[in-house]
């Protein structure tokens, strides 16, 4: 078949992958086929509106949207595999993080992968206002357990972050990865806080890379033991020295 005769089958997605690629190449040079395709789209545009109204079955909306948001959760959990593997059985369902424009790319990105892997080993990434340094994770036996995992959001920002508290033997580790962050200026840092009552505790600082991503893992051994943490928050601070939030809290979530 000549390429120009494949317009209909292309429109109906009837071509094999190789045929489709070949036809798409052809499209680049054949005005006639491009116009015909455009015409088909335009001429069939109104046809769906000829559908007879059919009442959807009872409860379809809940099932469909339930599955949609469930899917989102599965996708994100799949991508943070190491955390998932170490979740304890008693734990309730994780909060479904929101999707973001670049969520998939970011979740798959090296930093996230390295961070997630490092949690299995005993590498803590303690950053004090500098870049995080992710060293080669040692492979070791571990009894990590995700105690809680939450999504942090803010009113006035498109940024978001996922935080998890991971128990490693007797220690606890707070990890947080954020995306779509604003770029910082000067000595500014993003400061993570754990809150109990009205009292904020410093729980790591990080900066955003050029893609607006940042991450931190914080050993909670430095914090008073036996505190029932109520919330986690991220604020933008003038420097890494703030003992209480000086800048605005941009992201937060209850724990």
């Amino acid at each position, binding site marked *: 078949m000549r390429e120009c005769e494949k317009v*209909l089958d292309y429109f109906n997605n009837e071509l094999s992958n190789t045929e489709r690629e070949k036809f798409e190449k052809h499209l680049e040079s054949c005005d006639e086929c491009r116009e015909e395709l455009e015409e088909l789209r335009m001429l069939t545009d109104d046809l*769906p509106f*000829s559908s*007879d109204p059919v009442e959807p079955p009872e409860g*379809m909306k809940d099932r469909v949207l339930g599955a949609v948001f469930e899917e989102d959760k599965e996708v994100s959990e799949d991508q943070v595999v190491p955390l998932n593997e170490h979740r304890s059985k008693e734990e309730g369902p994780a909060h479904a993080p929101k999707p973001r424009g670049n969520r998939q790319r970011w979740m798959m990105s090296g930093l996230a992968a390295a961070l997630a892997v490092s949690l299995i080993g005993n590498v803590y990434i303690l950053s004090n206002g500098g870049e995080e340094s992710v060293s080669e994770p040692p492979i070791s036996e571990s009894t990590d357990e995700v105690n809680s995992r939450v999504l942090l959001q803010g009113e006035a920002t498109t940024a978001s972050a996922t935080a998890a508290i991971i128990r490693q033997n007797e220690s606890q580790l707070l990890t947080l990865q954020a995306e779509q962050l604003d770029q910082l200026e000067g000595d500014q840092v993003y400061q993570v806080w754990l809150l109990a009552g009205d009292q904020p505790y410093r729980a790591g600082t990080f900066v955003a890379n050029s893609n607006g991503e940042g991450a931190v893992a914080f050993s909670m051994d430095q914090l008073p033991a036996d505190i029932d943490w109520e919330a986690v928050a991220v604020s933008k601070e003038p420097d890494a020295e703030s003992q209480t939030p000086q800048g605005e809290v941009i992201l937060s979530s209850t724990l």
Partner: protein
Amino acid sequence: MMAVVKEKKGCVMSNRDLEYYQKMMNGDKQSLEAIYDKYEKLLYSFVIKLSSDHSLAEEVLQEVFIKLWTQKAQYDETKGKFSSWIVTITRYTAIDLIRARKESVSLEEETDVPEEKGDSVEDLVEWKEKSTDVRRALSQLSDEQRRIVDLFYFKGCSQSKIAEECNLPLGTVKGRLRLALKHLKKHLSIQEGGISDA
């Protein structure tokens, strides 16, 4: 004058869609829900027309909204209206699922050219506005033209299948289809003109 008003109305409508869509892109579940509420019945009814299969229809809708939410399908407002885009995604999703299920869609019976029904008042303005016109335009095609449109658009048949079903030489299918679709559009625009005059 009337045409201008119509144009404006369409514009406002798609802006609302765009607003929802953009909020949804930023993770706003309520906006996805708003899109769902707005298009549920149209898309469901459309898939029933494509497949006559209620369980498939629900599955298709689920796929479509997963594609929206996970951004596997992305809408580009420069390429047309949101409603056209979402029905197109729905059509391809339905065609794929029908094929995946390897169900041979019965070609024996032409999808009914729907009669006007008393209870067909829909919330979706665009559907309400267009359904009568499109049905009437379809009914003005010859039987063969309607059958070609049905096999091609609603059944998603290949060119050779259409040739076989309609006893046409392969090479003439495209020409016949385009002619049929152009007639359809012409009848549609005549009707729209008629409405404007009224």
